[in-house]
């Protein structure tokens, strides 16, 4: 099939399921991704006061839906925002994105908009190249992503259980002692025996194990990638006792580190 088989059309009733699966496919591998239900997708795109059905542009190849863009007015000025742009990576991503962005330009110009803003994931090289070719300029992002931990014990538990296949420490008991905790419990104990984990908030004094001493901001940074284990140790913000079990302690902390890229598509005014 040639590039002329690709075209962009307006959204029509019945496209929702295909668009939802494109969204899940495209954004699904990012941390902070929220798996959407059909109801969620309809709420976000179709019912969004700034997007609406007329703000959804659908890219097709033949009869198949291969991408879409959701555009809407910005909260300030006479500009428009591309809230979402997804495509099926098994097709010609560059062509799909290029077709969609050209149509976005046309649609925004028809609506009298002066500019278009777009915050795509920076690891998508196809989008980057197309943006460059179509005359988009990069501006310094003035946004940061702040994760606030509401329950660190549960978070640690979820991460360890989720990464249990990567646990290569064997049977061991760990006590993470956390200073400057905003929550009442300042100890997380993790016990692994017979391929099973048990978690508690108590320090069992008669039990020998690995003690990891740290503080809440450091542990948060270690989990979300803001600090390396070595630097934290050099700064004396992370210590493992007894010293001969340092390898096990470091392995535990490495397991807790989340290394996947984070991305949140723009949702509303405050973002």
């Amino acid at each position: 099939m040639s590039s002329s088989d690709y075209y962009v059309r307006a959204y029509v009733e019945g496209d929702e399921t295909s668009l939802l699966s494109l969204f899940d496919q495209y954004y699904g591998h990012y941390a902070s991704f929220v798996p959407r239900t059909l109801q969620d997708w309809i709420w976000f795109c179709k019912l969004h006061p700034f997007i609406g059905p007329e703000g959804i542009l659908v890219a097709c190849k033949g009869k198949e839906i291969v991408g879409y863009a959701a555009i809407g007015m910005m909260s300030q000025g006479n500009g428009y925002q591309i809230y979402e742009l997804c495509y099926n990576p098994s097709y010609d991503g560059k062509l799909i994105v290029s077709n969609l962005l050209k149509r976005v330009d046309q649609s925004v110009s028809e609506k009298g908009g002066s500019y278009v803003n777009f915050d795509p994931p920076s690891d998508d090289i196809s989008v980057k190249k197309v943006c460059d070719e179509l005359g988009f300029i990069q501006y310094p992002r003035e946004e940061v992503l702040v994760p606030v931990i509401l329950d660190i014990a549960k978070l640690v538990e979820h991460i360890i259980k989720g990464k249990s296949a990567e646990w290569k420490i064997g049977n061991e008991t760990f006590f993470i002692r956390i200073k400057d905790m905003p929550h009442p419990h300042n100890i997380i104990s993790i016990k692994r025996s017979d391929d099973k984990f048990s978690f508690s908030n108590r320090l069992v004094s008669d039990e020998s194990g690995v003690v990891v001493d740290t503080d809440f901001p450091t542990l948060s940074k270690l989990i979300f990638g803001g600090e390396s284990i070595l630097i934290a140790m050099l700064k004396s913000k992370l210590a493992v006792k007894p010293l001969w079990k340092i390898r096990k302690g470091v392995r535990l902390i490495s397991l807790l580190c989340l290394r996947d890229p984070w991305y949140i598509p723009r949702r509303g005014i405050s973002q």
Partner: protein
Amino acid sequence: MEKKNYKIRTYTDDDWEKTLKMILSHTPDLNFTMEYWDWRNRLSPHFDPSLVFVAEENGNVIACGHAQVWDLKISRLLTIKGALDTELLVHREYRRRGIATEIRSTIKKNLRERGAIILIAPTEAEIYNRARSKRVTFAVPMHLYCKTAYTKNLDCTTLKKKLSIINKILNEHSEIRNELMKLNFTIFLRLKGYPPFVLEASQGEVSIREGEPINRPNMVVTASKELSSSTKTLSMIRMFFTGDVRVRGLLKNSISLLKFYRILKKFSSYTVQKED
């Protein structure tokens, strides 16, 4: 210590109008409409009225904060309960009284009760830096937060706005206007991020017109990289030598251009004075 006259309580449907009134006064420049508030809250499939809190004083809503609990991925294979879409707004006149802190901790407490483990907030860097100075928070590092911001101007509205300020200053300062009177040239610009436009200086006025030039321009500037008023002179020279900026007719019009540049420099000082 200042007496606390407000109380924090959960939101009810009767608060709708009062809350919106507060929000509109808080952010009058934002396109915050009743429709938006409804969409964000009442229409959301994840709306939980018990996670919307208002601070009330003398029957008026003076602050509002809300959150929603979602299933959130924290890595490719890990999904936990987390809060997204939180907003916290305090009326301008009631700030610096600890209302936001109180609402925030109420929201956090309620989120914990609903099993939320983390709260994710995309925040403006400026707000984050202010919070960081109080050592209350931290951010996902840049290499992991992979978002790039792009923009493209479809017309020259922003440039025209700047130009209207220039012309206003010209009307107020005849000495610069007289200098500009001596200049008469047309530059055709193809700048990245802007549609092609013509910059014209004639009879003491500067104007911009979108599209191709009608007559042959004195100069043609083509920039394949971003070029703006904030671009430093050194970067501009580098771009000129690397070919990212190409100028046709530069030698022929170098004197006029230098004069125009000097006039523009004067403008920037006038603008600063006006802002002061």
